[in-house]
């Protein structure tokens, strides 16, 4: 059986004449199909994408409105005081004055006498491997026995700025204590104002309440400023206490 198809010029011409009416509607269908695939489907996808974005932007708008309402209801004075307390406990830079105040406060409370002290300032980028926060190391001499040294550390742990005792060495009335005082520079970069502001958690409220009782953490708990101390005090305490 011969299955060959004869497709010479004459046949093509006859076929064209016979089926030319089909060409236009088929062309229209093909163009419609191409338009649907190449234009309309991407546009539909774009619409859904835009809808999602609109939802997100709407949520952001709602968050900003809620944030305004939240901030409007905050007590400005209380918030400033709390921020000041938290900043005193964890200063933004090396707060040498705060450190000296803390030592004075702790020594006054524990009835110990501060002797020599030396700072190991370190570099700005220094990080404590354990806690991940930069610190200033300070080694101090105390004229105190074991009990008073422990009391001193106990009081220092309730005094701003926040500190960590690394070494203690006490021999009768002479003690040497190495302390790290932490600080943390403020995070750089603009704050995203569309992130919802949440009220302080009970844990945070408890923490800020505890911190506000620490010495030097709030104005009412701050000791007498150095400028008001007698200039040539005969006291053995270099800070005049």
């Amino acid at each position, binding site marked *: 059986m011969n299955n060959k198809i004869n497709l010479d010029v004459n046949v093509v011409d006859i076929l064209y004449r016979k089926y030319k009416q089909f060409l236009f509607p088929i062309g229209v269908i093909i163009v419609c199909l191409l338009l649907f695939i190449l234009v309309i489907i991407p546009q539909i996808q774009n*619409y859904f994408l835009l809808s999602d974005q609109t939802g997100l932007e709407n949520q952001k708008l709602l968050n900003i409105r809620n944030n*305004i309402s939240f901030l409007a209801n*905050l007590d400005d004075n209380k*918030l400033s005081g709390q*921020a000041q307390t938290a900043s005193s406990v964890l200063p933004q830079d090396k707060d040498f004055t705060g450190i000296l105040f803390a030592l004075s406060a702790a020594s006054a409370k524990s009835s110990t006498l501060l002797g020599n002290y030396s700072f190991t300032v370190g570099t700005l980028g220094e990080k404590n491997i354990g806690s991940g*926060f930069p610190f200033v190391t300070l080694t101090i001499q105390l004229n105190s026995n074991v009990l008073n040294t422990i009391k001193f550390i106990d009081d220092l742990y309730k005094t701003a700025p926040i500190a960590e005792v690394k070494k203690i060495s006490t021999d009768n009335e002479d003690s040497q204590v190495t302390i790290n005082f932490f600080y943390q520079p403020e995070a750089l970069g603009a704050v995203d104002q569309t992130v919802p502001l949440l009220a302080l958690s009970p844990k945070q409220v408890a923490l800020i309440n505890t911190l506000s009782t620490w010495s030097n953490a709030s104005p009412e708990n701050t000791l007498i400023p150095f400028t008001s101390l007698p200039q040539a005090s005969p006291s053995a305490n270099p800070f005049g206490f």
Partner: protein
Amino acid sequence: MSADINLASTENKQSIKIEHALLIIRIAAVVAAIFVLASASIVFILNLTNPMSSIKNQQNQVLQNLNSYKNKSGNYNLLNERLRDISMITLKRTDYTEQLNKIVSLIGSDTSADTLTIVDNKFTLGISSTSLLSISHFLDAVFDVSDKSKTFTNLNIDSLTTNVGTGNYSLYISGQIL
């Protein structure tokens, strides 16, 4: 009989079939055109009526309102950030005071703590007393606390000496603070 396919057949039946097929294709083309036109119009209108630009405008307006609370917002963010960091430090920093207070509270009235050294959680404590019994009581209490509260570990008596001149007994113990 020739088995060649002849597409140019002039059979009537075939002509009717072709007319029918042409009609279907024409209808399909019209439907496709209408469908594409309609869907394009709908998508265009939907995209045109999307409220994104309106939302962005509103956002800008409320952000301007938020600027009047700039100080409050700054203070609040600072407070949150500081509290988070302080919590982390207080969780991670070594705090010997509780353990030291516990061990010191065991020292009797006729016993005195003379030396104390703490480096990297290892402590050495030296106490002295004129009464050997008091030192013994202190030791019993320390080991008892160590067993019960797991405050210390690796407790070790480093030395127990007597000063014949003063009649004082000195005890040095060391251990690890948990």
